[in-house]
């Protein structure tokens, strides 16, 4: 080690005392290898096994049936974005080495645009969220994702390189950048956010976890695309709560006094713990595909295969209409849902929870 430092800067080292030399050595060792000229192969080799490919619902135009995620526990918890991909009963998760697993959604948080999947496996390489780092503009980064489904075989996902251009707040506005996520983001100077890339991971050149690649985001007015990444610090609390089973959506939306911090946001089926069948045709009937454990929907007694007919007094003829009806709800509203179960009509009631954001 000493020899290599000498060769780097013998002119600098020589005038110093032996004691000083020792100190200098220590300081130099602490400096990460900048490695401008070197290949990133080593980092990629260590990061790639933690990134997964996800195949699920979709397949229609602009609804890609593939996506990305990354392992956040050795037991197979996977952090990804909450998207139409997860609308199917189970999704297919393919690891770096081609091993294929069935993934189940264990929790979602639509305001953060995140979902946690679980595969039945153990001892997997994974990211430690507590070791995530915060970076500033100019930091050189690598983006790992299943972009364009290029890596279809038993092969690692695609990697691209770039630089953090800014750390800013994503002001997602209707008509401009439409996104449920409304918080701190990194803007990257590379095309990280491609089809299928959402849920991928951004790391530093040394492989330190930085954030999760967001969905494709296009400004409909200027036809420009935004390459943004959600910092892990924004997501880690929720992720840990979901994994530990302590998660309820309320917590992130209220301050210590239980008062909502943010403006109300449109409600979605997931806010009630409902997951409908994939909305793939023009008028997909609003069948319940799954009911998340511990959710309002489960407490109210809704079951998979129930067909939602009424929200309040309004007839719901499709998944699309269900979304519209739920979107009209206000926090604290009484909510009546009528479903058809086998040959019977079943009515359930619940109260709309407090929620966040627009």
């Amino acid at each position, binding site marked *: 080690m000493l020899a290599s430092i000498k060769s780097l800067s013998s002119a600098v080292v020589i005038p*110093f005392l032996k004691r000083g030399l020792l*100190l200098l050595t220590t300081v130099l060792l602490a400096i990460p290898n*900048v490695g*401008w000229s070197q290949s990133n192969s080593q980092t990629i080799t260590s990061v790639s096994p933690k990134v997964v490919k996800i195949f699920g619902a979709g397949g229609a135009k602009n609804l890609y049936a593939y996506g990305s995620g990354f392992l956040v526990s050795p037991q197979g918890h996977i952090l990804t974005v909450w998207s139409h991909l997860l609308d199917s009963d189970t999704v297919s998760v393919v690891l770096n080495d081609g091993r294929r697993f069935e993934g189940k959604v264990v929790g979602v948080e639509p305001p953060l645009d995140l979902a946690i999947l679980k595969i039945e496996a153990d001892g997997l390489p994974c990211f430690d969220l507590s070791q995530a780092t915060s970076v500033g503009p100019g930091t050189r980064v690598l983006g790992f994702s299943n*972009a*364009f489904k*290029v890596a279809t075989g038993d092969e690692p996902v695609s*990697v691209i390189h770039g630089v953090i251009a800014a750390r800013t707040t994503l002001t997602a506005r209707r008509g401009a950048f439409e996104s449920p996520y409304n918080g701190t983001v990194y803007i990257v100077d590379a095309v*990280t956010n491609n089809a299928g890339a959402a849920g991928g991971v951004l790391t530093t050149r040394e492989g330190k976890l930085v954030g999760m690649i967001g969905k494709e985001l296009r400004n409909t007015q200027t036809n420009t695309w935004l390459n943004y990444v959600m910092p892990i610090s924004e997501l880690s609390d929720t992720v840990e709560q979901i994994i530990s089973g302590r998660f309820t959506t309320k917590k992130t939306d209220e301050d210590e006094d239980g008062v909502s911090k943010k403006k109300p946001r449109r409600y979605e089926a997931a806010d009630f713990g409902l997951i409908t069948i994939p909305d793939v045709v023009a008028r997909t009937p609003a069948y319940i595909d799954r009911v998340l454990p511990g959710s309002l929907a489960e407490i109210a007694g809704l079951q998979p295969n129930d067909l939602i007919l009424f929200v309040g007094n309004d007839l719901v003829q499709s998944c699309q209409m269900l979304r519209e009806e739920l979107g009209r709800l206000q926090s604290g509203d009484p909510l009546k849902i009528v479903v058809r179960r086998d040959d019977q009509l079943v009515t359930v009631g619940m109260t709309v929870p407090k929620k966040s954001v627009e």
Partner: protein
Amino acid sequence: MKTCFALSCLMLGTFGFSASLLLAEIDVRQAQSNRTEVVRQAAPAVVAIFSADGNGGGSGVLISPDGYALSNFHVTSACGNFMKCGLNDGVLYDAVIVGIDPTGDVALIKLLGRNDFPFAPLGDSDQVAAGDWTYAMGNPFLLATDFQPTVTFGMVSGVHRYQYPAGTFLEYTDCIQVDTSINPGNSGGPLFNSAGELIGINGRIAVEKRGRVNVGAGYAISINQIKHFMGQLRGGLVVDHATLGATVRSGTDRTVLIDSILESSNAYRRGLREDDEIISFAGRPIGSVNQFKNILGIYPQGWSVPLVYRREGKKEQIIVQLPALHRKSELLQPAGPKAPPQPKRPDGRGPKSPDDPHSAEASLPKDELLAEYKKLFVKKTGYANYYFNEQEQQRVLAGLKPFAGWQNAPAKWVLSGKTTDQDTFQIKLLPQALSAQFTKRAPGLQNLDGTDFLDEPPGSGGLLAALQQFKMLLTGGAAAFTEMSYLGNQPLDGQEVSVDVLVTRKSTVECRWYFRSSDGVLAGFDSSLGTDVDAAQIRFLDFQDVQGRYFPSRFAVQYGNTDYGTFEVTTVDISAANETAN
């Protein structure tokens, strides 16, 4: 003392920090000067390609001092048989099409007028890994009006990628994926590694959104794949890729199984059957269908590669000769210069519209092609440019020089000797008939009165017919056959030794003659009596002077899965046709 120590620590700490900045700066400057140096060395070999009238456009790269350059098929097919090529010395050269690979989207052209062209050294694309730095050079958007190539710098995103045919037969297998900016006009241009070696030909980009510009995923055809096809391309051929003659499917637990197999295929004759599990192919382990297709795609038709399969727990290795992926007519159609829209150009430029602001800049002075260049293109069905095939035939035929003593030799040949399994033989090659007599083996007789060639002696695959072909080659050369063609080079019998292949046809007999690439020596030949049957494979083991004439004194004969025998020739009696054989 304590204070002094603390102070010195502080000073040293500060110094260490600034030293690190200094080191980082040195590193950055070093990396920068390395990059400029690579660009300086590589740029002279980069070619800007235009059609003869200055339209169209793409990129290419020189790979030899005599002007051979690689590009994309979808670039050259739009440019015609003669094109104009600009180098970074600002000079515009004439170039002629040599060989094309429509499936792999590769074309070989030859720049004319110099024998000292700058050229790029070929790298080894199997050593490329995700994370490596790369340079793409070429003429994107036709910006380089002085032919000084545009350079983009980026990283390898993935290797051994498979890209499905995009609505055409154009298929990218085992390619290199880069985030290096590749745009329309980069097509056909080089991808260099950080040492400035050519590792791929840029050809395709993801175009799923944002129009036809870079979105962070570009694909380069690996140079190692192109190396497999190089001999065929130099031979002026329309080259084809290979198939196994069988389809595969995924089994459980990441296995790949034979789904169905053509009974006429070589693989079937070697023993491969439905439901066999493929363990490895061409020396690479197989874990998915995708992987198999990826590897299959990098081989030219006619190559022999090893395949290991498992049936009922038992592993077996076979050498499989790969049939062509397409019918000849399928590939020939778009090869004509007058049919530009044939293959969809995945990232290529459309034809220029007259109001394109760039057309004025890109238009080139019109000049007449030199007469001496015109003869460098010979049109013939099945070839991109038959002129180069003839050149290669002449080069390879030089390997027959030691046999010159046989030219116009008398027509009656009688070979006698013994085989290594203690049999004796006498083989007569007469103008009217061929015969073989053994002590142990069954005899063979083949009339030369126009009847079909048969498997004579039985079980040899038509050894008599094969030796007759050999006699024709030695006495008459190329003129003795209806057709002769150069078929590129390939590893002999799937092994290490590379050979140049000449194929000849005479009535129903097709022969492939194998000349060692290293020294031109005739290593053997395959003679087949028809399509979809095994050939008699003759491999020369030793040569000696037999009665003053150079002759293969030892040769092995294999037919299908069986060794027919190894022959040791002790005498060759030759006499004129009017003398009676004893």
